[in-house]
């Protein structure tokens, strides 16, 4: 049971990182606080510390964790789905589609909320879903579905959505700074309502993908083989596509576009525990959540008194590490 041991070891390491990450997220920030302050607050809470610990730090750490987990799960699903290591929420056009919706809402000046979600988020979600449905329909010919076509259509549609976004930003240059924060992602304004919604989507998607994880393993063998082994291929494919879109769009709609996580985290995880989707989904989610939590910690503490868009951190930290891992494997 070598694989089993490997997973157990990874799980304990991840757990350690999770605990340390939460501890650091709670104690580090522009206002200096120590463990003693935290304990003191937990025993007899005061207003100011309650806001800093619960409303600002805990909500950010949790939202970063949930979004990291969602993006990574989405990436793990898409990579298995396309049997292509290049796949990720960016590649199929979800992220670009969602950001287009968000910037469009900004452009139209729509700023009220609906069911605890700002209209901007609703727009992001709807347009992300619309782009993927479009891509999905376009890449289907006479009921036959081609992975290559879907990937290429996804890239094209994504590029179209990105350029439309740039067009809007160019025209409405007053909201430029806001748009930049959206395009590079930020957890600065994390709210508890967002956490609740992202959490619900993540749990739902996680159980659904876990349920079909065995079928995903079969899909790797090719659609025909999978079909002959009793996997309802077309239904499974539709479900996975919908789930991965839901995950990516809900993430983008609360935090803007955060690149790289959905691409690299499933890779790391696969390198560490192997390609079995029954474990890959869960481990990718956990690793992605922890990774993004640390990235957000850096984003808000790296330059005191100012915020870095988190997309910058994920790429700076992620890319070299990813290249290193790839080299190790050779």
């Amino acid at each position, binding site marked *: 049971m070598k694989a089993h041991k490997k997973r157990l070891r990874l799980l304990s390491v991840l757990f350690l990182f999770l605990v340390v990450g939460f501890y650091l997220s709670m104690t580090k*920030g*522009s*206002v200096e606080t120590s463990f003693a302050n935290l304990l003191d607050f937990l025993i007899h809470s005061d207003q*100011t510390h309650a*806001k*800093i610990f619960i*409303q*600002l*730090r805990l909500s950010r750490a949790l939202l970063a964790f949930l979004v990291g987990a969602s993006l990574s799960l989405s990436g793990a699903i898409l990579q298995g789905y396309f049997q292509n290591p290049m796949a990720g929420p960016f590649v199929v056009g979800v992220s670009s589609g969602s950001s287009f919706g968000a910037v469009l809402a900004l452009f139209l000046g729509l*700023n009220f909320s609906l069911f605890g979600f*700002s209209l*901007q988020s609703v727009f992001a979600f709807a347009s992300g879903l619309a782009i993927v449905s479009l891509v999905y329909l376009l890449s289907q010919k006479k009921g036959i579905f081609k992975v290559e076509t879907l990937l290429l259509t996804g890239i094209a549609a994504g590029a179209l959505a990105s350029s439309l976004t740039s067009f809007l930003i160019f*025209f409405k*240059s*007053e909201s430029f*700074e*806001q748009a930049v*924060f959206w395009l590079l992602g*930020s957890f*600065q*304004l994390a*709210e508890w309502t967002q956490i609740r919604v992202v959490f619900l989507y993540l749990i739902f998607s996680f159980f659904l993908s876990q349920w079909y994880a065995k079928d995903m393993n079969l899909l790797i063998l090719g659609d025909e083989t999978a079909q002959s082994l009793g996997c309802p291929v077309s239904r499974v494919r539709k479900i996975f596509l919908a789930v991965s879109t839901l995950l990516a769009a809900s993430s983008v709609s609360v935090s803007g576009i955060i690149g790289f996580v959905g691409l690299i985290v499933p890779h790391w995880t696969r390198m560490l525990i192997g390609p079995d989707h029954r474990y890959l989904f869960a481990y990718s989610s956990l690793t992605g959540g922890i990774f993004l939590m640390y990235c957000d910690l850096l984003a*808000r503490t790296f330059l005191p*008194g*100012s*915020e870095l868009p988190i997309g910058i951190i994920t790429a700076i930290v992620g890319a070299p590490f990813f290249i290193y891992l790839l080299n190790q494997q050779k």
Partner: protein
Amino acid sequence: MNWYKVFALLLTLLQLTAIAGGQERIITDDLGYPHVLKNPPQRIVSLAPNITEILFALGLEKKIVGVTRYCDYPQQAQKKERIGGMVDPDLEKVISLQPDLVIAFRGNPLRLIRRLKELQLSVFVLEQGTSLESVFSLIEKIGLITYKEKRAISLVDDLNTDYKRVLKLLTSVKHVPKVYINIHGKGLWTCGRDSFLNDLVKKAKGLNIAGEMPRSWLAYNLEEIIHQNPEYIIVITQSQKDFAEIKEWFVQEAHLESTQAVREENIHYLDEDLITRPGPRIFRAFEQLSRILHPTLFGNLR
């Protein structure tokens, strides 16, 4: 003692308790949020440089506890605690300062304003308005919420007197020169119809060559400048040094040789902070611009 004396006494007592308890008054801010006026604010955070300038002009220096990293005027503002930028303020820092009034401006994202309200901070949001005169109401509103109404009114009076004098001089202008305004450094960014700057140029009796464009800010093109042939080029920059560089570019640009502004070297500098912040200093910028466009008019004034 007759009944009516007792009644008068009671009434006075009643009034005294009302004053001691702090009379509440509810007004709304420019986004329509209600704002309760209860006690004069003692700890104010400003989320924009023009707000900071107005607060200082109203003599509230001691009440300001936090400003943005862009708030550099007056000098004393630089000594105040920094809370980050207009788009990315550090929320922890804001809360730790325990402000009883946060004044936001339209450059602050609305999501941010909503978040600040959720954190139970007393936030008052102000809109920029589209004309030069809206600075007056800005000052008056800030005076109202900080209990400096009288000071605000006298500040507005002073500014208005100077402003009116310039306007009066400008009434005798016969020739309205064409102007090209250059902002954001190199790259031909300019201001269109909907901008605050366009209104300023119009009031200074100038004709903004991009003033027909239905936007606030836009990238203009070289051909259009040549075609419009402006008599003045106004370069708005952070410093004289940046200005010298950009002026050099305009002078060197061979295609612009034919325009009157370049031929006569009518290329002038305006301080970006002065002219882009809707605060008390904007009227100084207005006078500067009027002087540039109509040099003979102001010959014997100051």
